[in-house]
């Protein structure tokens, strides 16, 4: 069940040029979080920026009631968030939305994350490892300095393969190239989050090989709870209407989503 909670910033550190990790003490919310869900965060008391900002649950320390966020500074809201000092209050609403379907014990799963899109995958990896799953992560980024998340996955016992556009670490190129070295038959499930063009490639690879998969979408949001109908997204499975990313998603089965190259290109623009 979602709720409102005033959390407290425990840490807010820069992990790459434009990326931050914030740890928040929010015990009531932490207990409810599922991987793939998001928090809706009020950034300031003033009315500019006005709306809350949706950010995925990056990690949860259940026992200590701590939630981590991984966010990229892209505009006014995230810039202000990056300035939040330790001990400051954060107004949290959540957890919201449909998270990932967790694998059963001992499954073998593959995660594909691009940039800050890796955020919703960490807690998924954590809980999957608790279930004794074998977890592989293909992680793409612009440069090596952006690959900080890799070690957090490795600590969980995840097999991590990285790709960088600038060749400064791991494979030199786009992360989806790494799929060529993967055998879809090795896995029972695929999970992906990242720029739309990346997800389009990952998703068609999975579908071509009949691999079950889920992905996480983004859309501008006002309410976050299905009330305003602002986050409408055109998805195959919801036609002739629209899906609400906040409550029907943000996680959808790859079958439900047909990321047309057109849509992919358009949305990729914002990443």
């Amino acid at each position, binding site marked *: *069940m979602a709720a409102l909670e005033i959390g407290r910033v425990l840490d807010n550190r820069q992990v790459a040029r434009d990326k931050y990790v914030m740890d928040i003490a929010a015990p009531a919310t932490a207990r409810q979080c599922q991987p793939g869900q998001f928090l809706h965060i009020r950034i300031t008391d003033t009315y500019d920026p*006005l*709306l809350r900002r949706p950010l995925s649950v990056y990690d949860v320390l259940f026992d200590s009631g701590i939630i981590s966020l991984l966010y990229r500074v892209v505009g006014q809201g995230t810039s202000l968030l990056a300035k939040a000092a330790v001990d400051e209050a954060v107004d949290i609403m959540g957890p919201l939305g449909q998270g990932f379907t967790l694998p059963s014990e001992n499954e073998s799963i593959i995660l594909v994350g691009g940039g800050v899109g890796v955020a919703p995958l960490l807690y998924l990896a954590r809980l999957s490892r608790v279930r004794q799953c074998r977890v592989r992560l293909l992680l793409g980024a612009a440069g090596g300095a952006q690959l900080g998340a890799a070690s957090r996955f490795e600590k969980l016992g995840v097999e991590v393969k990285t790709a960088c556009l600038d060749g400064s670490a791991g494979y030199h190129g786009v992360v989806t190239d790494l799929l060529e070295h993967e055998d879809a038959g090795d896995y029972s499930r695929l999970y992906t989050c990242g720029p739309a063009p990346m997800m389009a490639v990952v998703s068609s690879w999975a579908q071509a090989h009949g691999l079950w998969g889920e992905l996480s979408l983004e*859309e501008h949001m006002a309410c976050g*709870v299905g*009330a*305003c109908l602002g986050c409408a997204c055109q998805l195959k499975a919801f036609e002739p209407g*629209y899906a609400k990313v906040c409550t029907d998603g943000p996680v959808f089965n790859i079958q439900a989503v047909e990321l047309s190259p057109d849509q992919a290109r358009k949305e990729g*623009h914002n990443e």
Partner: protein
Amino acid sequence: MNSRPMSYPDLSTDLGGIKMNNPVAVASGTFGYGREYEDYMDIAVIGAVIVKGTTLEPRVGNPPPRIIETPAGMLNAIGLENPGVDIFLSEHLPYLRDKGVTVIANLAGNSIDDYAAVAAKLEGHAGIAGIELNISCPNVKKGGLQFGTDPVMVKQVVEAVKQETFLPVMPKLSPNVTNIVEIAAAAREGGADALSMINTLMGMAIDIEQRRPVLGNVFGGLSGPAIKPVALRMIYQVHREMDIPILGGGGIMNARDALEFIMAGATAVSVGTGNFVNPRAALDIARGIQGFMQDNGVKQISELVGAAQPR
């Protein structure tokens, strides 16, 4: 809470026949069918829940993007996505009625017959306290001109709806007009029991990288704190000229804002965009109004209605 319950101020109000426990309603289209917010509060405590706009037939709404933030506001172009009046009556209304929620239905259509037909369908269903008429929809018969901008159409649509229902009828006026008093007068002549003021201001935003409008629908409705001064002005103008209960809204975020609307002449207020920022806004605001009344020795909320008008 105070230890002398006898001194509690009385927040109950009568909005042209719609009885409310407190003067704070949630605005149509910003609170779904109420249940979306049940995790955050007991929605039966809210003064009134104005549900999402309902049309005769289901509507899929506008293509995305549908919303965009603006300075102290937001633009929306939802396009009246809704499941139609039949689903409203069979799925949503019974649920809200069982919860004891004060429900105001919100009607939309593209012709006078549309409005009348939806009103007729609602008639006889228990659990509806009143009807709000969203007359900011394009009138298909008149080439898309909005009902709410023409006094003659306003009067006609209110009359047509009044003939189909015994419920209090409250047209929701569009602020995109030269003379709001003239529109209000027309609504009143048509038999309106109350007025809802104001709907969104028509606006737009442009994506300079793509060189095109941001919203799928090009234009959208501006809401939030940005429009508060305009809303207040229109309510003040109408209350100064005529004696009809007004549901005032537009940018209300806190109790101080709500009190400004009440003092301008609103009998009750509605919170829209504010719900997105604080899902408990309606309750927090009602409590804040109560606190103000206690601090200032105001016994009944009606004492404050129009208090800022010239005497």
